[in-house]
């Protein structure tokens, strides 16, 4: 690839993997009007950056995180103590190459990892928002990200990339800010939440709200947290992130630490033990109300809604170049949903690449190392960098 992005020694924006997140307060003078009609501000936005911003600020890639993700894409996550969630995709020499691009990931509105959410203090009361936090949408998340980029003086994005809910944000970005987005990469995602998607989320929310410790969302005023409910919500959701063949090959009907069935309700099977572990380890790092709010934002997501259900109209006239990636074993956001997006993009004469990648690990395939996704993302970004270099020369 042509070395397009000349590095400017004078730019100050460079952070390394384990550096602390930046937090800025936005919406103090101009509060943000949300899709619900409510207004929020001031609010805090947490983000992290990697690589160097070039002189003309044309090498920015925005990485959008998923439902329970955060802005710790690389390096040690201070909340979990684990490595970042997309180190195989983002970094020096990786498909999203931080030697070339200035990569930024912004924690979504409503989260509990730094950006203001229901567990943050309500400026009006000084106490945690709880259910006084306004219901938000994917569009609202994207709007706060645009506010942060304005604040940082970044006008255009070379690319916006994300998987799952991150992919929803990438598409929303392309629809809401067509002039600011040169390319959008939407992985293992959809254009609207289906009835089945909403149904699974509702099970999770009901599990949380049925926990007596939830206390109508005011649990932060008490000692106990709705951990049991949140763990069940996570367990149910986690099943949708895997595939039957993946589960069968990994667990089958294998028993957990025993030779025979115990004729009781302990975790006899390895899959039960695994799911319980997923549930229990989740509650330490995630806020139950955040889970309610962010799942709601995903349920409300439908790019075709403002266009009488005709998705192609959402993309009409777009100049953004799209890359859509689905996985054959993903039954949460299926290949068919991605194909519908691609057909709608074609109907709108948009430039789109689409790969349906054969992996058996279900929805979570997008987080896994290796496979053909790397080559697809790398080739897509490199070719567009070549096009941009030709435009400039």
């Amino acid at each position: 690839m042509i070395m397009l992005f000349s590095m400017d020694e004078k730019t100050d924006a460079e952070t390394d993997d384990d550096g602390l997140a930046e937090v800025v307060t936005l919406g103090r003078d101009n509060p943000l009007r949300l899709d619900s009609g409510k207004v929020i501000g001031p609010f805090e936005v947490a983000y992290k950056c990697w690589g160097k911003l070039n002189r003309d600020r044309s090498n920015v890639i925005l990485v959008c995180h998923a439902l329970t993700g955060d802005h710790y894409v690389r390096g040690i996550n201070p909340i979990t103590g684990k490595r970042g969630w997309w180190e195989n995709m983002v970094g020096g020499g990786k498909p999203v190459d931080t030697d070339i691009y200035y990569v930024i990931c912004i924690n979504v509105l409503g989260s509990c990892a730094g950006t203001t959410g229901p567990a943050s203090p309500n400026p009006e009361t000084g106490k945690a928002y709880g259910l006084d936090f306004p219901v938000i949408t994917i569009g609202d998340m994207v709007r706060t990200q645009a506010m942060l980029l304005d604040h940082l003086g970044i006008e255009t994005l070379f690319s916006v990339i994300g998987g799952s809910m991150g992919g929803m944000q990438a598409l929303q970005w392309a629809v809401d800010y067509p002039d600011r987005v040169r390319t959008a990469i939407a992985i293992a995602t959809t254009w609207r939440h289906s009835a089945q998607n909403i149904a699974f989320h509702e099970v999770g929310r009901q599990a949380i709200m049925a926990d007596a410790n939830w206390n109508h969302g005011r649990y932060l005023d008490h000692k106990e947290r709705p951990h049991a409910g949140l763990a069940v919500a996570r367990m149910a959701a986690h099943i949708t992130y895997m595939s039957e063949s993946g589960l069968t090959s990994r667990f089958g009907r294998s028993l957990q630490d025993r030779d025979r069935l115990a004729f009781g309700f302990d975790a006899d099977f390895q899959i039960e033990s695994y799911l319980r572990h997923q549930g229990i380890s989740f509650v330490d790092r995630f806020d139950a109300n955040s889970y309610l709010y962010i799942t709601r934002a995903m349920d409300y997501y439908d790019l075709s809604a403002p266009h009488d259900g005709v998705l192609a109209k959402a993309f009409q006239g777009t100049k953004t170049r799209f890359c859509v990636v689905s996985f054959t074993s993903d039954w949460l956001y299926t290949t068919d949903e991605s194909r519908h997006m691609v057909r709608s993009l074609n109907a709108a004469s948009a430039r789109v690449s689409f790969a349906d990648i054969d992996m058996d690990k279900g929805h979570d395939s997008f987080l896994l190392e290796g496979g053909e996704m790397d080559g697809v993302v790398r080739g897509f970004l490199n070719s567009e960098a070549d096009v941009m270099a030709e435009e400039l020369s």
Partner: protein
Amino acid sequence: MNAQEARASDIRVDLLEIARIITPGSTVLDVGCGDGSLLDYLVRERQVDGRGIELSAQGVNSSIAKGLSVVQGNAEEDIDFYPDQSFDYVILSQTLQAMKRPDRMLEQLLRVGRKAIVSFPNFGHWKVRLNLGLLGTMPVNRTLDHPWYSTPNIHFCTIRDFVNLCKQMDIHIETTMAIDARGHRMSFANLFLANFLATQGMYVITRK
């Protein structure tokens, strides 16, 4: 440096014949674009705005890795979703005979494109006739490289069959090319000779 850069020497000779027809700067849809080598060549050497549809995951992945706007899909289903007359050229290279309904595909090609470039292996070639006539078996050779039971090519036709179909469908043949075994254009366009000697037929067709 660009490792994937396509040069004339890297692509099949018959694909170069297609490339010669394309006006620089035009919009092109390559239906069944394989690994994207023709499209890549057209984008770089003819400055076209190129798109592709490809069924095989392998072809799609290598096309996207070349930086092409190629989508994974079944051409016969996906072509319905492209707007009318949205491309200057739609290319269907060596794929017509693998379609469930070649006639419907021709219809779609000319709905989506102002011109269509269609090439296909000629089942009327003398070696094929010899094979069938004397040996009594289905031919397997360089252009027809699968045995009958596993071939994706389910609707073979001869050059004369294709010309007849175009007549029947009221399709105008703008250019006729007979292609020999090495991929070069043959100098004659006489239908009888072409149907007997060409291994491939290549046509530029439009709506009347």
